[in-house]
């Protein structure tokens, strides 16, 4: 099991060399992938489908000092690449809802984990596909600031650390500070000459470690997906289909398909060919169709009108010992030990449970999802939105209803927490957490200073008074698809206290029924039985008398 010490960006370092292969290996080649060593990296690349060997390009045959220098070299041939990336969420950290017009994305929303990158860009942008976003002055039009390598590195040596605003490591340094562990600078020439298609570990370097710990954020994504077995993920199974993330999240012009922000929860019709512009390649239905079960199980196909594939086929999420975070209580941050010193504590499974910098966490593994009607339209709390502190604040509200033909019952991860808010203005606050300066919460343990600095960076009024409010985040679960043998059985929902006992608006045999009819029906049958027994009893008695 991976230790929680390997926070956010240690993914690349922690993944073994053989994941490099998943970028190139097709299922038929998976045998070569399993015995990977640095030597076979080159072997496999020669066998790969690519028509170019980047180590032969003179543009890459030089010592690069910085990330942007590498990007400039990439753009000599890949003339449109940076501009393409600059249109994607990986660059803008922004997404506009086509239905509501709401501007979401990491840049605009407040989430339930680290809350907001605003005023913390130097740390957070370690996961930005770019270089130099350190504050609101970042210029989103400069092409050389697009980071090609974080997605295309195949050497697993390219690391971006918090504090560098998205730049890789240029000088050997101790990380985490005072840990005695050192990170060597990236060999940008070697990395540039070895680039390939994104593998699971490329995507995972950010998406597995969101919220600053392995598995913390999503619940259905963590480092176990670098080398998954069939039990964990039937499609990514390293010895089986060995899918990369991009096998489903088919990508065109650097636009990665399939996003929580723009879900396609009710994809209809048969399986369709890859590349169909009307389709949602990342949806299960794009390969399986909306009637995926064989004829003798046709009753299951009728379920697809109401139930997402994920509901039955992802019976639990975080199906490993890494687990996922179920709550983050920021109100416990700045609590010190008896000596007035900051401290950290882990839970029995070695996962972070408390940190004076960040507060208290609760983790779990093999989590049973909470189920919701979902139509794919989620409304998010964006920075500055008013809240009602008397209620639990919904960090996002998932749309959907049983009457809507485009809604399905989905499994979700609900992450609960407590966050600071301005008690006068009734807004969730933006706080300056990361950094070594006087106002950074993780440096000075002073909420007042941290909020004041954060709100200033976010251009929001701050009354000077804050308290903590309960919050809830609801995210659909869609990864870690189990083998069919592990899918939910009928009775897990079709029973009085089953998985879907709180789902309204749908009649489920065995769960539902008319109590009055049941009482009347059983009474009728029982009275009839009693009646015939009495009748028969009298007959027996009278016949004996007569006899």
């Amino acid at each position: 099991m991976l230790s929680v010490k390997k926070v956010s960006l240690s993914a690349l370092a922690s993944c073994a060399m053989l994941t490099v292969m998943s970028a190139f290996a097709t299922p038929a080649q998976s045998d070569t992938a399993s015995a990977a060593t640095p030597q076979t990296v080159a072997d496999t690349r020669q066998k790969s489908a690519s028509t170019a060997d980047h180590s032969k390009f003179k543009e890459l045959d030089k010592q690069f000092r910085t990330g942007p220098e590498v990007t400039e070299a990439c753009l000599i041939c890949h003339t449109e690449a940076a501009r393409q990336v600059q249109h994607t969420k990986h660059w803008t950290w922004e997404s506009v809802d086509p239905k509501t017009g709401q501007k979401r994305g990491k840049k605009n929303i407040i989430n339930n984990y680290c809350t907001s990158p605003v005023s913390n860009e130097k740390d957070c942008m370690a996961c930005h596909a770019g270089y130099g976003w350190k504050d609101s002055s970042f210029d989103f039009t400069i092409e050389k600031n697009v980071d090609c390598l974080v997605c295309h590195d195949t050497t697993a040596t390219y690391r971006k650390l918090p504090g560098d605003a998205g730049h890789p490591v240029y000088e050997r340094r101790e990380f985490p500070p005072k840990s005695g562990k050192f990170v060597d600078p990236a060999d940008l020439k070697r990395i540039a000459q070895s680039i390939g298609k994104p593998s699971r570990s490329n995507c995972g370097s950010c998406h597995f470690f969101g919220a600053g710990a392995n598995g913390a954020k999503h619940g259905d994504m963590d480092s176990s997906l670098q080398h998954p077995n069939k039990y964990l993920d039937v499609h990514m199974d390293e010895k089986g289909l060995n899918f990369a993330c991009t096998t489903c999240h088919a990508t065109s012009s650097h636009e990665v398909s399939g996003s929580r922000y723009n879900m396609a929860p009710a994809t209809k019709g048969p399986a369709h060919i890859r590349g169909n512009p009307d389709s949602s390649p990342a949806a299960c239905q794009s390969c399986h169709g909306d009637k995926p079960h064989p004829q003798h199980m046709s009753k299951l196909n009728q379920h697809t009108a109401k139930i997402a594939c994920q509901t039955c086929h992802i019976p639990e999420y975080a199906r490993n010992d890494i687990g996922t975070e179920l709550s983050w209580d920021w109100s416990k941050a700045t609590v010190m030990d008896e000596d007035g010193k900051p401290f950290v504590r882990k839970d029995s499974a070695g996962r972070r449970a408390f940190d004076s910098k960040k507060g208290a966490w609760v983790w779990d593994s093999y989590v049973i999802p909470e189920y919701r009607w979902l139509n794919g339209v989620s409304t998010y709390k964006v920075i500055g939105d008013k809240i009602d502190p008397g209620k639990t604040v919904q960090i996002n509200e998932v749309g959907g209803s049983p009457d809507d033909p485009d809604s399905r019952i989905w499994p979700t991860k609900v992450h609960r927490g407590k966050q600071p808010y301005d008690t006068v203005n009734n807004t969730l606050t933006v706080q300056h957490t990361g950094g070594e300066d006087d106002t950074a919460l993780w440096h000075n343990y002073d909420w007042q200073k941290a909020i004041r600095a954060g709100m200033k960076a976010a251009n929001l009024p701050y009354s000077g008074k804050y308290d903590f409010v309960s919050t809830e985040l609801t995210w659909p679960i869609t990864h870690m698809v189990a083998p069919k043998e592990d899918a939910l059985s009928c009775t897990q929902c079709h029973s009085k206290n089953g998985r879907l006992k709180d789902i309204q608006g749908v009649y489920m045999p065995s769960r539902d029924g008319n109590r009055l009819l049941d009482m009347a029906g059983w009474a009728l049958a029982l009275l009839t039985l009693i009646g015939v027994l009495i009748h028969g009893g009298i007959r027996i008695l009278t016949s004996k008398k007569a006899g």
Partner: protein
Amino acid sequence: MTTNKIYVFKRFERFWHWSQAMLIIFMLVTGFEVHGSYSLFGFGKAVDLHTISAWMLIGLWVFAIFWHFTTGEWKQYIPTTEKIVAMVRFYSVGIFKGAPHPFRPTTLKKHNPLQRLAYLGVLLLIGPLLWLTGWFYLFYGDWQAWGVDSFLSLEWVAFFHTAGAFMMLTFLIAHVYLTTTGHTPTSHIKAMLTGWEEVD
């Protein structure tokens, strides 16, 4: 008292009766499990068994309907008021005093007037109610294609299907008991097994 025997139930009729009886009892058992009244086979298995039995019963009915019309046996279910009061009086009073059965079955009139009414009710009311609701229940996935999803709800389809099941269960209890009210307690059952009914 002399005992005579008449041939009332032909071979197909007896086959129809007993296979239908088994299927109906089995469908009650599996159906009430699907309804959530108890656990026996497990929900999924119960649904499968219930569905298979339904198709078998439909097949059986196709043959039975054909048989009834080609043989003219359907006339056995035409209701009559003749001797109906006598039958009620027999079941409520006479049977306890050893009074003779007011109805004497013949090959042309094998059911007494109360039987005729009860079976007609099963054939025209309980049966079709279960059939129709069961059919929509089974083909729930096609409602949209059929254009019935705007006015049908599974909740009400299930309601009437369950109501039909309770009526069938009630019929079954009374029916089984009434088989003991023949010439001897077993003569009706013997008749349905062998075809030959003992009469006074």
